[in-house]
């Protein structure tokens, strides 16, 4: 009995010191001077632009990675083709490679002195930021959906085909409903990671306030460059708020998965 209590206390303290207390401190600092100060700080032109840029990136990255993730997961779970092992490994690459390297690699490829000789205005603008974010969030949907596809097997799909459903009808009516929780989970993780991406963006995004500055970059800039700690806390709180929304969604989804 007492060991159990001791274990619990250790776990709670660990979580508390590492996660809860630091985050709560930011929260406290944000609202220390009242809600109005917070509101003003996160509705400056630079802040609004940063929030909308972050959300825009999410809005582009999520559909891209859902489509790519579904196709790849189907190929990995159902297909049988040469190079499948390689694809398996490549999908995990973004997890293994540090985001900073991703940023550098993108510049090497798309930048003015890069392979494409800067033919496309990618770096320091939205396309570059989207590319970087797509890259770092690539595995989530694939890795959430692939095991579900394996688990449900092919029998339901085969049954649908014997009942006259085309491949497309089978996908929409049978496969997708069966994997939707996995897809949802992948989307939530992609959203959270997209919002939080920092390393790759510091390299490829210009970081120009009001233009190419995401929420994470804004927090960093206010804190380090402007010594505006309060502004940094407020922006961080917004970021956390968005993350919290996705987290709540994730929990709800998980409940449904268990049900």
């Amino acid at each position, binding site marked *: 009995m007492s060991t159990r209590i001791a274990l619990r206390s250790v776990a709670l303290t660990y979580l508390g010191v590492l996660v809860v207390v630091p985050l709560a401190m930011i929260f406290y600092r944000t609202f220390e001077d009242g809600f109005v100060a917070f509101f003003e700080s996160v509705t400056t032109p630079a802040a609004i632009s940063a929030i909308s840029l972050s959300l825009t990136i999410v809005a582009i990255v999520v559909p891209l990675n859902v489509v790519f993730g579904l196709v790849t997961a189907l190929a990995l779970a159902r297909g049988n083709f040469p190079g499948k092992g390689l694809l398996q490994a490549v999908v995990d690459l973004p997890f293994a490679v540090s985001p900073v390297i991703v940023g550098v690699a993108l510049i090497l490829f798309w930048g003015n002195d890069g392979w494409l000789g800067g033919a496309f205005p990618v770096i320091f603008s939205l396309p570059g930021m989207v590319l970087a974010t797509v890259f770092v969030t690539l595995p989530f949907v694939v890795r959430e959906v692939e095991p579900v596809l394996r688990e449900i097997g092919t029998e*339901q799909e085969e049954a*649908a085909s*014997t*009942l*006259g*459903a085309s491949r497309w*009808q089978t996908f929409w009516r049978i496969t997708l409903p*069966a994997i939707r929780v996995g897809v949802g989970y992948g989307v939530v993780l992609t959203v959270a990671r997209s919002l939080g991406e920092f390393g790759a963006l510091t390299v490829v995004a210009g970081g120009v306030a009001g233009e190419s500055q995401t929420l994470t970059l804004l927090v960093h800039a206010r804190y380090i460059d402007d010594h505006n700690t309060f502004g940094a806390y407020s922006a961080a709180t917004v970021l956390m708020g968005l993350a919290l929304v996705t987290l709540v969604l994730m929990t709800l989804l998980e409940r449904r998965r268990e049900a």
Partner: protein
Amino acid sequence: MITVTNVSKRFGDFTALDDVSLEVPDGSLTALLGPSGSGKSTLLRIIGGLEFADSGSVVIHGEDVTGVVPQKRGIGFVFQHYAAFKHMTVHDNVGFGLKIRKTPKERIDERVNELLKIVGLGGFAKRYPSQLSGGQRQRMALARALAVEPRVLLLDEPFGALDAKVRAELREWLRRLHEEVHVTTLLVTHDQEEALSIADNIAVMDNAHIEQVGGPRELYDRPANSFVMGFLGPVAQVDDTLVRPHDISLLSRPEGDAREAQVTRVSHLGFEVRVELQLGDGQPVFAQLTRTEAAQLELSAGDIVWLALTGDRDARLVSEDDRLDAVA
């Protein structure tokens, strides 16, 4: 009628079907019987279009469907593990094929209700598959397959995942359903009792080949080889003759060419009594007697009896090889 002609199928360098030909007569309930791995499912899936043959042809009701996709074959397929659409109600499962065919909603409802009644799931339309028992799920799957009025019904071990009692019930039920609906049916099973009890025609498979096709009595009474004989029922071997153990009679005194044997064990299995014996040369044999026969002989271990072969001569085989691996 389903006609399979010279179908071969390999998976890598493994041969699953080797030049197999089969005819399933119109309106029949044919069983494809064989041990695990003999190629039954592969043959059924090739007929259903879920797998394609390397060579040979499949003809359903006069139409060559060898390269045709399953959607266009006019088949109903039932899987061992039901393949229920988990996110749909029983009603939507059964109506799926009709919905794909853009049947008007009222017509779907009508047909689904009619089918659910036939398969005994009248009050279950609004449930989800997870709220049904295994037997109910399989009946739902059958209704779903029948909804599109298939030309042939293909069943892959439909009762294999159910417990013995439910399995026996559903077997009976399928037999009756077949008598009502009369759709040409091919049923895969590895259970010889199931095949003998419901099929009017049985094809015995072993090792990528079809060994024999015939009615249940024909296969039991005139097995083409020792494999078929052994797979359809128990076999005893006396010298080099294979015989059904109920075609062995035991006598209390020598007579004709009866052979002397010593009883080693007597087991009472309800109606039947199983007697294990040892012939003079040490060869073990077992015989099945009725209770009455056994009672008259008053057998017990150690007794000396005389063993004679009775019954139909054609029901015996001369052991030709060592393939008698299914002896009970």
